[in-house]
C-alpha cells in the first residue's frame, strides 16, 4: 500500500492523504447538510416538539406541519368540535386534535402555482430568445458583437433594487404590476443574459461543417438550424433551462418589491406563515421542504454542467 517515490506519487496522491482528505470533506458535507436535514425534521414535528428545548431529535412524526401549511384554521371549543360530523380526511383529523377546525385553504398553493407559472414561463421565453440570439452570435458576423455580448452580461451587474424603482413605475403605467406576465417578462430579461452566454458556448462547440453539409444537401439556413443544430444543442439547452428555472424559482427581491398578492410567488409567502403565538415553524419547514425538493432534484441532475452555469460559461469543465 505504501506509495513509491515516483512521478505518480504527485499525480496520484498516496492512500493516506486520500483518506485524510476524504474524512475532512465528508465531515464538512455532513455539517453543511445539518440545516437542511433540520428543515425536513421540523416539517414532520408537532408545533410543541418543534420549539422544545433541548431540540428534539427523537419525536413522534406527524403531518401537522403540512396540514397547517395548506389550510387556515380557527380555534374552537372541544364541545363544538365534538358536535361536528366525523372528520373528513387526514388534515381535518390532525387539526381537530389541537381543537382547531379547518376554515379553508391557505394561500400556499396559489403562491406555489405562481412560482410554477412564472418560473416555467420565463424559462421558456429566456431559452427561446437565448437560443436564437446565441445562434446569431455564434454563426454570423454581427457588427459590434463583442460590445453587444458585454452589454448583455452587464445587465446582470445591476442591483435588482436599482432597476426595481423605474420598473415599478413602468409597470404601474402599463398595468403590469402584480401580474404574472410582468414577472415573466422581468425574469426573462434577467435570465436571457445567462442563456445567451451559456448557449453561445454550447453552440460554438457544434462544428459548422454539420450545417454546411446540410445546406449543400439543399437545406436552407433555417432548416439547417432547426434540423441539425438544435438537436445537437439539446443538452446545452436543457442545462440552460434548468439554470434559468432555478434563478426564477429562487428569486425574492423583485417579487417582494413588485408584487403584493396576486402574482406573488412562494419565497415571500413562506416566511409569513404565522401560527398561534408566532411563527408556525413546522408549517414554515413544510413549505420550505416542498419548495426545495425540485431544486434538490435539479442539482443532482445538473452537477456536471453546474460550473458553466454559475460562471456564465466563462469556465468550462
Amino acid at each position: 500500500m505504501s506509495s513509491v517515490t515516483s512521478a505518480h506519487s504527485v499525480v496520484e496522491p498516496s492512500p493516506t492523504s486520500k483518506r485524510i482528505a476524504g474524512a475532512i470533506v465528508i465531515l464538512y458535507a455532513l455539517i453543511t447538510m445539518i440545516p437542511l436535514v433540520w428543515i425536513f425534521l421540523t416539517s414532520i414535528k408537532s408545533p410543541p416538539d418543534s420549539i422544545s428545548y433541548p431540540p428534539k431529535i427523537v419525536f413522534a412524526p406527524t403531518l401537522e406541519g403540512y396540514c397547517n401549511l395548506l389550510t387556515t384554521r380557527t380555534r374552537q371549543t372541544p364541545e363544538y368540535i365534538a358536535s361536528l360530523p366525523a372528520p373528513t380526511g387526514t388534515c381535518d383529523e390532525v387539526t381537530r386534535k389541537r381543537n382547531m377546525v379547518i376554515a379553508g385553504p391557505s394561500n400556499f398553493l396559489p403562491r406555489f402555482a405562481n412560482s410554477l407559472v412564472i418560473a416555467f414561463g420565463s424559462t421558456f421565453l429566456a431559452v427561446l430568445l437565448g437560443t436564437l440570439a446565441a445562434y446569431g452570435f455564434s454563426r454570423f458576423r454581427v457588427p459590434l458583437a463583442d460590445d453587444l455580448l458585454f452589454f448583455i452580461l452587464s445587465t446582470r451587474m445591476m442591483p435588482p433594487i436599482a432597476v426595481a424603482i423605474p420598473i415599478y413605475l413602468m409597470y404601474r403605467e402599463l398595468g403590469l404590476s402584480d401580474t404574472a406576465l410582468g414577472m415573466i417578462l422581468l425574469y426573462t430579461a434577467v435570465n436571457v443574459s445567462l442563456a445567451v452566454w451559456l448557449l453561445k458556448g454550447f453552440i460554438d462547440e457544434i462544428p459548422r461543417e454539420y450545417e454546411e453539409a446540410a445546406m449543400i444537401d439543399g437545406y436552407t439556413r433555417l432548416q439547417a438550424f432547426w434540423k441539425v443544430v438544435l438537436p445537437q444543442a439539446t443538452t446545452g439547452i436543457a442545462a440552460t433551462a434548468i439554470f434559468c428555472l432555478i434563478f426564477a424559482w429562487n428569486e425574492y427581491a423583485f417579487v417582494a418589491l413588485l408584487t403584493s398578492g396576486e402574482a406573488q410567488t412562494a419565497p415571500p409567502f413562506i416566511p409569513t406563515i404565522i401560527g398561534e403565538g408566532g411563527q408556525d415553524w413546522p408549517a414554515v419547514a413544510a413549505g420550505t421542504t416542498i419548495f426545495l425538493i425540485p431544486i434538490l432534484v435539479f442539482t443532482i441532475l445538473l452537477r456536471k454542467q453546474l460550473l458553466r452555469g454559475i460562471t456564465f460559461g466563462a469556465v468550462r469543465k
Partner: protein
Amino acid sequence: MNISSSSMVEKAADATARAMPTSVVRRLRGLSDRAIAWVFIAPTIILLLAINIFPLIWAIYLSFTNYRANRPNAPVLNVGLGNYERVLNDPDIWQAMQTTAHFVFWTILLQTVIGFALAYLIDRKFRGHAFWTTLILIPMMLSPAVVGNFWRFLYEPQIGLFAYAVSLVTGIPTADIQMLGSVSLAPWAIIIVDTWMWTPYVMLICLAGLRSIPDYIYEAAEVDRASAWRQFWSITVPMALPFIMLAVLFRGIENFKMFDMVTLLTGGGPGSTTEVASITLKRAAFESWATGRASAFAIVLFVAVFGLANIYVKALNKVKQR
C-alpha cells in the same frame, strides 16, 4: 456526415417543407444570413432595452428630480445634482456602504479560504468524492430568502439548534447566544449563512482551476525535487489564481447586491448594524418614497460595482497573461 444519415435528414426536411404553406417556405428560404442574424438577435436586444436599459435611463432621469412615486400627480422639479449631493453627504449611506464592504470582505475571505481548501482536498479524488461534492453543492442552489428565513429559526436563542450546538461545545448559556439580537453578533450571523450557502460556489470554480493544471508540471517539479510545500506555492496557487479571482469577482458582485438573505434574517437590525446598501436603498425607494434620491443612490451603487468590476477584470487579465 455519412450518406444514410444525410438522406434521412433530407427526408425530414422535405416533410417540414411540405408541412409549411409554400408562401412561408419561400419567404424563409429567401432570408439572407444577415437578415437571419438580426431576426434572431433583435428580440433579445429589444427585451433588454425595454426591461433593463430603459429603466436605467429612467432612473438616471429621476435621479435629477424630486419625483415621489407615491405622489404621481405632484409637480416634478429638476433639482440638478442635489440628490447626488445629499446621497454622497449622507452619513447613513456611508454607514451602509461600510457595512456592505465589511460583509463583502469577510464573506469573500472565508469563502475563498474554505472553498479552496475543500477543492484542494476533493482534488485528491478519494473514494466517493463525486457523491460528497454533489452534497456540498446543494446549499448554493437554494433560495437565499427561503433558507435565510429558516436560519432565523436555527438562530433562535431559546429553541434553535445553532445556539444549542454552540452552547454544548463552549458551555456558554444559550440565552447569551443572541445571534440576531446582539449588535456584535448579528453581522456574523449573516456572514455565517452566506458562507454556508456560497462556499460551494467558490469551491467548484477552484476545483475547475486545480483540474486545469497539467500533470506534467508536477512531474517536472518532482524531478527537480521540489518539496510539496514549494509545489503548492509555486505551481498550485499561481496556476489556480485566475479561477480563484473569477470566483471572487462573481461573489463580490453578488454580495454587493446582497438583499434577500439580510432582509429575512435581520431586516437590517438590530438598530442598523446589518443595514447593507440594498436595504437602505429599498427603504429610501419603497418606504420613504424618495424616488429621486433613491435613484441617485442606485446610480452611485451601479457605477461603483461597474467601476470596481472593470478595474478587477483588468487585474484578472494581467494574471491570466502571466
